[in-house]
C-alpha cells in the first residue's frame, strides 16, 4: 500500500458519551504507542503527533493525526480522525536513484494507533455507537 493510500485511512465515529470520555479514549489509544506519541487535547480537538524514532527528542514527527470532535445527533459526539501532515522516506541506489516505494514514516505506529482508537471508541458505546474505519478510495 502506497503513501497516498495510507494517509487516506482514518476513523469516523458517532458515540453517545461526553466529550471528556471521548478525549480520554483518544488519549488511551495514543498511550498504546508509549513514548512514540505526543498528545495535545482540548474539548474540540485532539492532535496526536507520532514520533517513530528511538529518541523522542530527535525523532521526526510523522504522521500528525488530527481528531476533531463535534456535536452529533441526539447527544452523540461526532468524531473524525485523519492524517494532517506526514513525511515519506524512500530508499535509493548510489544515494540518489530512487529504488523503492515511498513509505510513510511512522506507518506501523499510525495503524496501531487507528486500531486502538477504533477499539477505544467502540468501548465507549458498543451498542448504539458507530465506529467506521475510513479506507482509501480505490482508483
Amino acid at each position, binding site marked *: *500500500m*502506497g503513501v497516498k493510500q495510507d494517509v487516506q485511512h482514518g476513523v469516523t465515529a458517532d458515540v453517545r458519551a461526553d466529550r471528556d470520555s471521548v478525549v480520554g479514549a483518544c488519549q488511551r489509544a495514543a*498511550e*498504546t504507542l508509549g513514548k512514540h506519541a505526543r498528545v495535545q487535547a482540548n474539548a474540540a480537538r485532539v492532535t496526536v503527533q507520532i514520533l517513530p524514532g528511538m529518541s523522542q527528542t530527535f525523532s521526526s514527527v510523522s504522521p500528525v493525526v488530527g481528531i476533531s470532535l463535534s456535536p452529533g445527533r441526539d447527544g452523540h459526539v461526532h468524531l473524525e480522525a485523519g492524517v494532517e501532515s506526514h513525511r515519506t522516506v*524512500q530508499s535509493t*541506489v548510489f544515494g540518489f*536513484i*530512487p*529504488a*523503492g*516505494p*515511498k513509505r510513510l514514516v511512522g506507518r506501523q505506529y499510525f*495503524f*496501531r494507533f487507528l*486500531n*486502538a482508537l*477504533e*477499539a*477505544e*471508541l*467502540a*468501548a*465507549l*458505546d*458498543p*451498542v448504539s*455507537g*458507530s*465506529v*467506521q*474505519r475510513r479506507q482509501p478510495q480505490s482508483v
Partner: protein
Amino acid sequence: MKATLVILLLLAAVIIIPRLAGASVGSLVEFLFDKGRAESAQRRRINASYMTALPLPEVLAAASDAAGRFPGAQAVTDGNAGTATVFLGQAGTVAIDVSSRQDGRNRVRVGPAATGVEEEMLTRFRGSMLAALRARDPGTRHG
C-alpha cells in the same frame, strides 16, 4: 570504456524508461510489494488482543457480559480450552482466545471465527469486550 557505457545504459533504463512509461521506479516496486503489505496490515487489524490481570474464568465471564449487550447474541465458553465463541446472529461469529503469559497476565485475542463476521460488528464487539474487561480490571490495556 565499455563498463562505463553499460553503467550509463543501466542508469538510463532504471531512471528514464519508467518515467517515459509514466511511472517512477518507486511505484513499480510499490506495485510488487503492495499485496503483501495490505494483507499483513489487515491481519494485524483483525487479530487485536488485550492484556489483563483477570484470571481465565473472569475473562470468560467478561466475554459473556460483552455478548449480553447485543440483542440475540449468545456466548459459549470453554474454560478448559480457554476459548469462547460468540454468536452474533446474521452478523457472524467472533472467536475469543485466552492465553496465559509468564508474568501471570492473560492475553485475550478477539477476532473473527472461521465462519467470519461483519467487520463493523467485530469492531463493536471488540469495544464491548474491552469495556467489559475494563469494568473488572481497569488496568486492561491493548497488547
